[in-house]
């Protein structure tokens, strides 16, 4: 593999020399929605044997949002979708494809996208996409393909999760990590190889690692029974140490692949938006790729790990905070159960009115 010599990263007035956009699209709008319920580290310390300082040091998380009774994944997804549409200045009828990246559907059947479509009042192509914490990046590459091929002219891509439902209330190794939330983007067909869109990407799965992160029961392998529930097999099980190792190495390797394919050094990345699984994973990854904390968006302290919602939620907040400019190279990296990975290098192009802060939905 040829190594691109690093060059100092400037904030140039003129557009920097940049690689061609292979899958053009523009982001017409961004939006996010989170449940109003908060679960703080202090709350957790009252329930299991843990402490605020232990959680913050090990994970970087201070609080996470959790749904109340009556709030499900599609509620968060629809609220995020409405926010993105409003930001784009269009109504739901402007969309001809609805992709919901989630691994926590409202029900095993029908798709969460069906319920979101009902709330939005649309009848277009609507589907769920499951790739765990790589889900939104998988969705982005898929949506880009739909737009370039003409299958869609305007796609609504939502990442939405209610992970709190899978938390074993007695398991202090998973309970602090996960939260609920949703974020969405309106994607529209782009301009061409010099315009915004996907410059490079890398999607994959490491099936040797299938068993490291599971919710074992409630599907066709082990249908739900009174016994499986009594055994807690409807809760998430994770081999944390091995997941940590694989996350660091796989994200490093995938990011190097994408930067190499694009022909750019890490210093050219304006913003790195990693999946917000654990601040320590991000800390371990940055020096391996040659990125700095200043280049990186982190909001895990307030939301925890929201799986497929994590990257778009961080993107939405970064855009709202003014951290992104037209033409910026943005590196997204997700990694999750499967074990799946999804990395994408975008050239940023956004025509929304300016995304609002995530909308908090009272229970």
């Amino acid at each position, binding site marked *: 593999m040829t190594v691109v010599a690093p060059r100092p990263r400037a904030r140039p007035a003129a557009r920097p020399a940049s690689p061609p956009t292979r899958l053009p699209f523009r982001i017409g709008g961004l939006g996010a929605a989170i449940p109003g319920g908060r679960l703080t580290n202090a709350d957790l310390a009252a329930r299991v044997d843990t402490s605020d300082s232990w959680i913050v*040091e*090990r994970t970087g998380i201070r609080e996470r949002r959790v749904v109340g009774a009556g709030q499900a994944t599609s509620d968060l997804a629809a609220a995020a979708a409405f926010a993105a549409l409003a930001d784009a200045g269009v109504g739901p009828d402007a969309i001809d494809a609805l992709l919901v990246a989630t691994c926590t559907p409202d029900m095993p059947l029908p798709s969460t996208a069906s319920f979101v479509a009902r709330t939005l009042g649309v009848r277009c192509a609507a589907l769920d996409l499951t790739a765990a914490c790589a889900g939104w990046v998988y969705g982005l590459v898929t949506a880009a393909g739909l737009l370039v091929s003409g299958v869609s002219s305007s796609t609504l891509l939502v990442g939405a999760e209610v992970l709190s439902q899978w938390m074993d209330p007695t398991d202090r190794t998973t309970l602090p990590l996960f939260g609920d939330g949703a974020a969405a983007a309106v994607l529209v067909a782009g301009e061409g190889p010099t315009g915004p869109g996907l410059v490079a990407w890398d999607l994959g799965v490491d099936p040797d690692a299938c068993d490291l992160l599971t919710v074992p029961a409630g599907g066709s392998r082990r249908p739900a029974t009174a016994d499986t529930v009594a055994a807690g097999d409807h809760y998430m099980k994770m081999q944390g*140490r091995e997941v*940590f*190792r694989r996350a*660091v*190495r796989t994200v490093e390797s995938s990011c190097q692949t994408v930067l190499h394919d694009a022909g750019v050094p890490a210093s050219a990345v304006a913003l790195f938006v990693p999946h917000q699984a654990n601040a*320590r994973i991000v800390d*371990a990854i940055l020096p391996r790729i040659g990125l700095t904390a200043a280049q990186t968006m982190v909001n895990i302290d307030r939301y925890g790990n929201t799986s497929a919602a994590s990257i778009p939620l961080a993107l939405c907040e970064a855009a709202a905070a003014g951290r992104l400019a037209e033409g910026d190279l943005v590196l997204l990296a997700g990694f999750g159960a499967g074990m799946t990975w999804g990395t994408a290098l975008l050239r940023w192009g956004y025509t929304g009115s300016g995304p609002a802060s995530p909308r908090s939905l009272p229970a």
Partner: protein
Amino acid sequence: MDRSAAFDQLREAAVEVLHVDASAVTEDARFKEDLDADSLALIEFVMALEERFDITVPEEELDGVTKVGQALDLVMAKLPASA
């Protein structure tokens, strides 16, 4: 590679990954109490050793490794025997 050369490499990895002074890295140094390295830092450190020495350390083998010398023993056991 002899133990002394391996220890030099291991110490470099510790300085880089655990952000400690080289002088703090002795065979008797305890990861948690002396080097302020929690379980995640230890995983990162062992990953660095895997990469430096081209070895594989399954994560179960970390159980019971609390001192630098034990990590060095682990590495030495996995290095190919000298001709």
